[in-house]
C-alpha cells in the first residue's frame, strides 16, 4: 500500500514537472540570435556614415519613407506626400497614433527638429549636404510637415528614406539627450543594452504602428568579427543568422542539416578604377584594352563568389541599370592589338594599389594582374592599409589602378554625382556627364530621369574610367527555423519586422 502511495506521489510530481515545462514552453519568448560583424561606431544616426550603425538602427528608428524590397520608395512614418509642380514644396502627412519608445507622441515638430538637427553645423552630420536643398521647414499642424526647397532636388526623397533620415524626438533633442548611446525612436524594437564588443540587445516595441509587427520578442546581436566563429555558431545553433558568408564557407554550411542559405544580389558596384591622369591610362585605347583583357565572370566567381557582370557605373539590380556588356567583351586578342596600336610595351609598368584588409579585393587584384600579364601589360601589386588607401587613392588620386567596390545608393544621383569632374579619384574629365547628372537631379519622374542617366551611363561605359566588373551575390546563412529575414535593397540594412523563429 505504502508502495502504491509512493508511486502515486512520484507520478504526480513528475506530471507537475512535465506540465510546468510545457507551460514554460508555451509562453517562451521568441528570441533571435544574430551575428553582427562589428561594433557600430555610434548609435546616433545623424553623426556617422557607418553601415553597422544603420544596420542596427533600422530596428530602432523609422524614417518618413522607406524602400520596399524592390527598392521602390513607399510610405513609412508619412502616410503620403505631395510635391508641387515646380518641385519646390514637399508636403508630408504623418501617420496618426505613432509613439516614441518613451511614450511621446510623434508630431510634425519632431520631423522639423530632426531635419534642423541634421542641418545644424554644430552637429556636423556627414550627410548634411544631402539636405542642403531644404530652405525652411513649416509645420502648419501636428501632422503636416512642409519642406520648402531652394531648387528642385529629386534625390531628396531617397535621402529621407535612408537611415540618416531617422526621426528623433523634438523634446529629447532640445533636452540634449545622449543619442549616441541611448537611441529613442519609433521603430519596431527598443534598445535594451549595448555592451561594446559583446552584444546589442533589442526588445519588442508593443506599440509599433505596423499592426501585427514585429513578430519577435527579442533580438540579441552578438558582435563577432571572425567569420569562422560566426559559422561555427551557426552550425552549433548559438547563432540564427549570419550575413557575411563567403563562397568558400559554402561546403561546410551545406553539409549541415540545420542551416539554409539565401542568395540575393547586392547593390555593390565592383570596379577596377583607372587613373585617367596617368600618362599610360590617359589613352582610351589602353583602358579599352584592359577591359577586353578581363574575364569578368571568372573573377566574380573566384574572388567574389559569383555575381552578375556589368559594363557601366550602376549596380546590376538597379532600375537605372543599362546593359553595355556588348561594348568591350572578354577578348585578349583585341586587347593585345589595342595595346600595340597605343604603343605600350612591357617596359611600361602599372601599379595596382590594393586595400589589404579586404581579402576579396586582394584576390581579385592577383587575378587582374595575371590576366593583364597575358595580354602583355606589366602590372605590379602594392598592398596598403585601409587608411592609406582612403588618403592616397580615394582622396589623393596617387595610384595607377586599384580594386574596390562602391556601395549602392537608393538614388542614382548618390552614385554618379561628381564623376566627370577632376576631383573624383579616377581623374576623368567629361563635362557632358556632369551636365546630365546635374540636370537629372532637378527633373522629376522616373522616365524623365532615366533618359538622362542612360546617356550619362553610356558615356561612362564607352570611355571606361573604370574597368566595371559586376555586382556580387550576397549569401545569408540562417538556421532552418528562421523565416522572413530581410535586408533592405541598396541600403543593406537589417529588417527584422517580418522575421519569425518557428
Amino acid at each position, binding site marked *: 500500500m505504502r508502495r502504491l502511495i509512493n508511486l502515486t506521489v512520484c507520478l504526480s510530481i513528475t506530471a507537475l514537472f512535465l506540465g510546468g515545462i510545457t507551460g514554460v514552453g508555451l509562453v517562451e519568448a521568441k528570441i533571435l540570435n544574430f551575428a553582427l560583424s562589428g561594433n557600430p561606431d555610434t548609435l546616433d544616426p545623424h553623426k556617422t556614415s557607418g553601415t553597422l550603425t544603420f544596420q542596427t538602427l533600422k530596428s530602432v528608428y523609422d524614417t518618413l519613407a522607406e524602400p520596399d524590397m524592390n527598392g521602390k520608395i513607399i510610405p513609412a512614418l508619412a502616410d503620403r506626400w505631395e510635391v508641387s509642380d515646380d518641385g519646390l514644396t514637399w508636403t508630408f502627412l504623418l501617420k496618426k497614433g505613432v509613439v516614441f519608445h518613451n511614450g511621446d507622441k510623434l508630431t510634425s515638430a519632431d520631423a522639423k527638429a530632426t531635419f534642423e538637427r541634421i542641418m545644424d553645423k554644430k552637429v556636423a552630420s556627414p550627410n548634411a549636404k544631402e539636405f542642403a536643398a531644404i530652405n525652411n521647414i513649416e509645420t502648419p499642424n501636428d501632422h503636416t510637415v512642409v519642406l520648402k526647397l531652394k531648387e528642385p532636388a529629386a534625390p531628396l526623397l531617397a535621402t529621407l528614406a535612408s537611415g540618416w533620415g531617422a526621426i528623433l524626438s523634438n523634446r529629447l533633442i532640445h533636452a540634449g539627450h545622449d543619442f549616441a548611446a541611448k537611441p529613442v525612436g519609433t521603430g519596431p524594437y527598443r534598445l535594451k543594452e549595448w555592451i561594446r564588443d559583446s552584444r546589442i540587445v533589442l526588445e519588442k516595441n508593443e506599440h509599433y504602428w505596423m499592426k501585427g509587427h514585429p513578430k519577435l520578442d527579442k533580438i540579441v546581436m552578438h558582435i563577432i568579427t571572425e567569420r569562422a566563429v560566426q559559422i561555427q555558431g551557426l552550425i552549433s545553433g548559438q547563432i540564427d543568422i549570419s550575413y557575411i558568408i*563567403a563562397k*568558400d564557407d559554402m*561546403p*561546410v554550411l551545406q553539409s549541415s542539416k540545420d542551416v539554409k542559405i539565401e542568395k540575393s544580389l547586392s547593390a555593390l558596384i565592383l570596379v577596377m578604377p583607372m587613373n585617367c591622369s596617368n600618362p599610360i591610362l590617359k589613352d582610351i585605347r589602353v583602358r579599352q584594352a584592359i577591359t577586353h583583357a578581363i574575364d569578368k565572370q*571568372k573573377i566574380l566567381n*573566384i574572388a567574389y563568389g559569383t555575381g552578375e557582370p556589368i559594363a557601366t557605373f550602376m549596380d546590376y539590380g538597379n532600375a537605372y541599370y543599362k546593359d553595355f556588356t556588348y561594348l568591350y567583351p572578354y577578348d585578349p586578342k583585341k586587347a593585345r592589338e589595342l595595346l600595340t596600336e597605343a604603343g605600350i610595351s612591357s617596359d611600361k609598368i602599372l601599379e595596382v594599389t590594393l586595400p*589589404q584588409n579586404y*581579402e576579396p579585393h*586582394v*584576390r581579385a*587584384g*592577383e*587575378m587582374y*594582374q*595575371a590576366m593583364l600579364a597575358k595580354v602583355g601589360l606589366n602590372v605590379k*601589386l*602594392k*598592398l*596598403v592599409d585601409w587608411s592609406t588607401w582612403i588618403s592616397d587613392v580615394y582622396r589623393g588620386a596617387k595610384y595607377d589602378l586599384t580594386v574596390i567596390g562602391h556601395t549602392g545608393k537608393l538614388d542614382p544621383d548618390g552614385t554618379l554625382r561628381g564623376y566627370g569632374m577632376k576631383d573624383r579619384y579616377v581623374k576623368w574629365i567629361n563635362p557632358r556627364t556632369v551636365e546630365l547628372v546635374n540636370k537629372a537631379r532637378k527633373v522629376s519622374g522616373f522616365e524623365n530621369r532615366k533618359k538622362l542617366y542612360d546617356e550619362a551611363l553610356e558615356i561612362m561605359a564607352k570611355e571606361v574610367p573604370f574597368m566595371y566588373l559586376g555586382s556580387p551575390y550576397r549569401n545569408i546563412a540562417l538556421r532552418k527555423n528562421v523565416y522572413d529575414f530581410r535586408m533592405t535593397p541598396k541600403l543593406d540594412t537589417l529588417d527584422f519586422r517580418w522575421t519569425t523563429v518557428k
Partner: protein
Amino acid sequence: MKKHKTALFFISISYIFILGVAGVAAPLMAPYNPTLQHLDDRFQPSSRSHLLGTDNFGRDILSRVIYGSGSTLLVGIVAVSIAVFLGLIVGLVAGLAGRYIDNFLMLLMDSLLSFPTILLAIAVVSFLGYGLLQVMLAIGVIFSPVFARLVRAETLVIKTETYVEASRALGSPIIKTVFKHIIPNLLGKVIVQCSIMFALTVVIEASLSYLGLGSQPPEPSWGLMLKDARNYLVQAPWMAIYPGLALALTVFCFNILGDVLSEGLNPKL
C-alpha cells in the same frame, strides 16, 4: 659529440644545402611558373602533375615552395649580415671606448631589445613601407643589439689579454689590432649566434608576410602561402601543410646547426 647529434647535424646540413640549391636554381628545378594561374585547376590535391597539389588560383604548390626557399634564404642572409655589421661596429666601439660612449650605446641597444621583436618589426616596416627589402632592413636593425652586446662583452675580455696589450705596446695602430686580434677571436661566438638568429629571421619574415607586411603577392613566399591557406583549411589543407612543413624544418635545422656549432667552436676547458 654524441652519435645521434652527429646524425642530426648531417641531416640539417644536407637540408640547408638542398634549400640553398633550390633557392638558387629554382627556375631549373620548379616544374611550373610559381605565379602562373591555372584557373581551371584550382584546389587540386597531390597528383603526378602537381606533386604537392595546387592552391586557390591553381598555382603549383611545389614550385611556390621551391621559389619561396630562395626569398627565405635571401632575407635570412641579408638581414643577419646587416645585424652582424651594425652589431660589430657598435659592440667594438662600445667595448673599446668604454665609459660614457659605452654607457650611451648600450642604453640605446637595451632600449631596442626591450621591445617585443615582432611589434618592433611591424613598427619599422610600417614606417619604411611594405616589401621584402624593408623587411630585411627592419630585421637587420632589430637584431643588431644581440650582436652588439655579444661583441662588446667579448671585446672587453679580449682587450685585456696580454697579446692585445703586447700588440698595442709594440705601437700597432688600433685599427690593425682590431682586425688582427680582436675580430678573429670573437668570430666563433658571432657565427654561432648567426645560425640561431637565422632561424628567428625565417620565422619573423614569414610572420610579417603573413600579416601582409612582408613579401607582396603574387611573390611565392612561405608566409604569404600560409596567409592564403588559412581561408581554405577545411577545403584544401595541403595549401597550409607543405609551406608550413618547409618553414618548420628550416627553423629546426638552423637551430640544430647553431647547437652543434656552439659546442664545436666554444670548447669548454
